[in-house]
């Protein structure tokens, strides 16, 4: 009973349904585990224990009344990345500028989770405003990788990944703009799914780059990811970028999942990149071989505009961020400088004091590329190349069912090891192109790298065409089965 925190969504749901334990017991086990381990890991920013237990108690009561009719996530605690609004809870985006801010409303994904019975009480760390790949950019604290405390958990959803990977949560929500779910999932040995753009509502999710941001599940298994996505996905009246596309039954799509006859594309540009860690290469090669052995047909494909993806991303994302983050001005909420003696100083000083260096860097980059006289050369050009990148994928998906690529060029690196921002940006080399294209992708644990005497988790990435999450999950599940043996 004491190790209930180790459970994933599916096992927890089964245990709760069978009456093996209560939601209060499950939630208390997670709380105890957080007390025991989070001092060294630092995944959580806040945990409303009282609220969590009250919600768990209510869930237990509800189950008594509804029995087998209970919603899928009833009584299961889910950790929330700290940029998703939950009414009455803080929502700092790991930024000093939102210290003390209490959210007045629920994000649509939270409404969905609450409707499915989930307990949303713990808020996890991240890179400030989701800008980063190591969670070191958090303005509020450091998060350690549960597999090696001297290393980063990845980012920006590093708190989510560390909480799930370290068994400090049953599951978590992350957000992914250029790799922020997938890369930390790879670093912390968990499953991370980035849904297609528009599949999940962004309403109530503090925006970094609006044309790229997506909320997704970070879980202990592919099946858990399917269960969570089922609750998150769908059209939302409050988000004009969610189409009225029907939501398939993702859990059902996993039945009999197999790689037999699945055409797996290997984008050659991804395998020509220099600077990929040899252990990552080895694990990816082994993954390719085991997929082939399981009946997958390997096809080499080309995504010719891959080399421009990084440049396009670092124009589009900062440009959108520069506008999205303008609202943090000290006027209506959040940090207001005490030295604000006029309107200009109110803005300048509040923002100078509230934002961290990486956020400032991206705001400056974004402001620059949108400036009069530069727009066409930067943002205008980048938008055009983005279309070409999207077409690359569309062409590839006419030939193959899914793509198989590394998630990140390296396993988790040491805290403080990467100082140069450009080197840090390269972490998202393999995840950014899919984000620009708006398709869906998943990071699934593939093995462990032997690095400097440590055993570090490494995942592989599968990518499917937009709105083919059911296919993506089935491929991911089949691969997971192989890895787990």
């Amino acid at each position: 009973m004491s190790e209930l925190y180790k459970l994933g969504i599916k096992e927890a749901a089964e245990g709760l349904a069978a009456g093996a334990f209560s939601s209060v017991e499950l939630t208390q086990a997670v709380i105890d585990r957080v007390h025991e381990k989070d001092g060294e890991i630092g995944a959580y920013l806040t945990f409303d224990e009282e609220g969590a237990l009250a919600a768990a108690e209510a869930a237990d009561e509800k189950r008594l009344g509804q029995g087998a009719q209970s919603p899928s996530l009833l009584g299961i605690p889910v950790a929330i990345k700290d940029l998703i609004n939950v009414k009455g809870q803080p929502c700092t985006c790991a930024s000093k500028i939102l210290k003390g801010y209490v959210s007045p409303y629920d994000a649509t994904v939270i409404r969905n989770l609450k409707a499915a019975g989930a307990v949303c009480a713990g808020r996890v760390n991240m890179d400030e405003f989701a800008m980063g790949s190591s969670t070191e950019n958090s303005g509020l604290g450091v998060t350690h990788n549960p597999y090696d405390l001297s290393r980063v958990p990845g980012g920006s959803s590093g708190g989510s990944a560390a909480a799930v990977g370290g068994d400090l949560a049953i599951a978590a929500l992350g957000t992914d703009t250029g790799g922020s779910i997938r890369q930390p999932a790879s670093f912390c040995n968990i499953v991370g799914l980035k849904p297609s753009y528009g599949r999940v509502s962004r309403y109530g999710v503090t925006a970094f780059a609006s044309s790229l941001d997506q909320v997704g599940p970070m879980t202990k298994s592919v099946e858990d990811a399917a269960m969570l996505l089922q609750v998150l996905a769908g059209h939302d009246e409050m988000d004009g970028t969610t189409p009225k596309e029907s939501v398939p039954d993702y859990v059902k799509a996993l039945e009999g999942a197999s790689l037999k006859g699945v055409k797996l594309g290997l984008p050659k540009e991804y395998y020509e990149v220099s600077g990929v860690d040899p252990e990552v290469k080895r694990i990816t090669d082994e993954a390719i071989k085991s997929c082939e052995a399981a009946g997958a047909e390997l096809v080499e494909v080309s995504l010719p505009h891959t080399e421009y993806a990084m440049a396009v991303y670092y124009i589009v994302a900062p440009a959108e961020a520069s506008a999205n983050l303008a609202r943090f001005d000290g006027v209506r909420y959040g940090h207001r400088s005490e030295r604000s003696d006029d309107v200009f100083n109110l803005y300048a000083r509040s923002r100078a004091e509230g934002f961290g260096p990486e956020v400032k860097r991206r705001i400056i980059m974004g402001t620059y590329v949108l400036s009069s006289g530069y727009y066409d050369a930067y943002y205008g050009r980048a938008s055009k190349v983005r279309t070409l990148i999207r077409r690359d994928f569309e062409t590839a998906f006419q030939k193959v069912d899914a793509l198989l690529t590394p998630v990140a060029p390296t396993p988790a690196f040491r805290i403080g090891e990467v100082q140069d921002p450009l080197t840090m940006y390269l972490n998202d080399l393999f995840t950014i192109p899919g984000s620009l294209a708006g398709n869906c992708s998943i990071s699934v644990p593939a093995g462990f790298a032997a690095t400097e005497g440590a055993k570090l988790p490494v995942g592989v990435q599968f990518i499917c065409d937009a709105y083919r999450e059911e296919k993506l999950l089935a491929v991911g599940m089949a691969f997971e089965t192989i890895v787990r043996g």
Partner: protein
Amino acid sequence: MEFENTIGLETHVQLKTRTKMFCSCLLKTGCEPNTNVCPVCLGYPGALPVMNREAVKLTVMSGLMLGCEINRHATFDRKNYFYPDMAKDYQISENGNPLCLGGGVEITRTDGSKKFIRINHIHLEEDAAKINHYAAHSGVDFNRGGTPLMEIVSEPDLSSADEAIAYLTALKEMLIYAGVSDCNLEEGNMRSDVNISIRPVGETKLGTKVEIKNMNSFKGIHAALEYEARRQRECMAHSIPIVQETRRWDGEALETASMRSKENAHDYRYFPEPDLVPVALSEEQIAEWKALLPEKPELRRARMVEQYGIAEYDAEVLSQQKENADYFEAAAKGLDRKVAKQLCNLYMSDVMALMNATGKSIGECAMRPEALRALVVLAAQGTINGPTLKELLPEIFEKGGDPEAIVKERGLGAVNDASALEAFVDQAIAANPNVVADYKAGKKAAAGFFVGQVMKLSKGKADPKTVGPMIAKKLSAM
């Protein structure tokens, strides 16, 4: 040297939608500050805009009304600037790809001649919040923030303050007509910034443009343009260069003052709004909205002159307010031109006088258009006479009712029977031999006395128009 003005207007019109541009807050005025707000219009983290379809509809209807081409694929942009009146610190607007393009409006100049003023485009955006300044601090009221705002940008086709006012008046008339906006200037439903430059007569190159803001009435706009045209001429006369800048109209001092020069102009860093998909408009959708449009006032005027045979002036007065024109046309239904003209005369004089006297619009009075038609028809048929008509009209205007029934019930029908009338005439003449003598002595006005006597004898039911000639005939035969 003689100079001419080149003037262009940017006119903001608040649209008459139920809710705000991008959220479900209701459009209402007069609430306590910051009570009609939500996470979206307050720019809270994570909040997203959702496009108000009704605002798109009203903008497209305005565009159709003004002869614009409708964009089938308009897109929104973010206009970035830091100011406390804009919750997100960017305004969602349409920069490069607006809903309506081209079009224009015909104005009547003070000399009566017509001129066509071209429109460059109409775009849709959200209004800013209101900033209130107090003794020691300022406050922002976000109730107005996010109100749908349509901006009509004219070409620089106007050449005087009078023309600018004629243009705004024409716009206002059309937009009220189309039901798109109340265009109430006092409530800020309609605001206009102006651009003005001057150049020597005969010169084709435009002069240096100055933008003027902060006028809150047509009068203010007129005064600001007059002032600025004069100021620029004085600059020219004294060889002071005119700089491209934005100037602020001071309604108290009645002058403009520099706000910011071109060098300090904002760089709005426009880019496509990623939170909103393009406004896709099908041909069917546009046709459906077009069918909702009322007839344009100038076309309606011409048609009314043609159809009812009424005077151009009357048609113009009637069509200035859609309510009056609609009422008149409902009342005139099925009438021949002669009676329709009588209806028009009655409407223009007595009905309008009643509206003035009671302070009620035609829609607020109790008289149905059918009742007014019946009254006019009763008079035209001679069933009632003029005095009875004028007596009944105010009563029906106030209390309503069916004229035919009232006439019947009270026995107000005119006496048209010639022998009955003749009897009254004979009776009146016989009773007043001295007046007959006066008449015979040359006092022709004495005939009027007899008409009055006959009216009295008939208890007001004789028609003076019939009685008059009868009396003249009798008297001259004596």
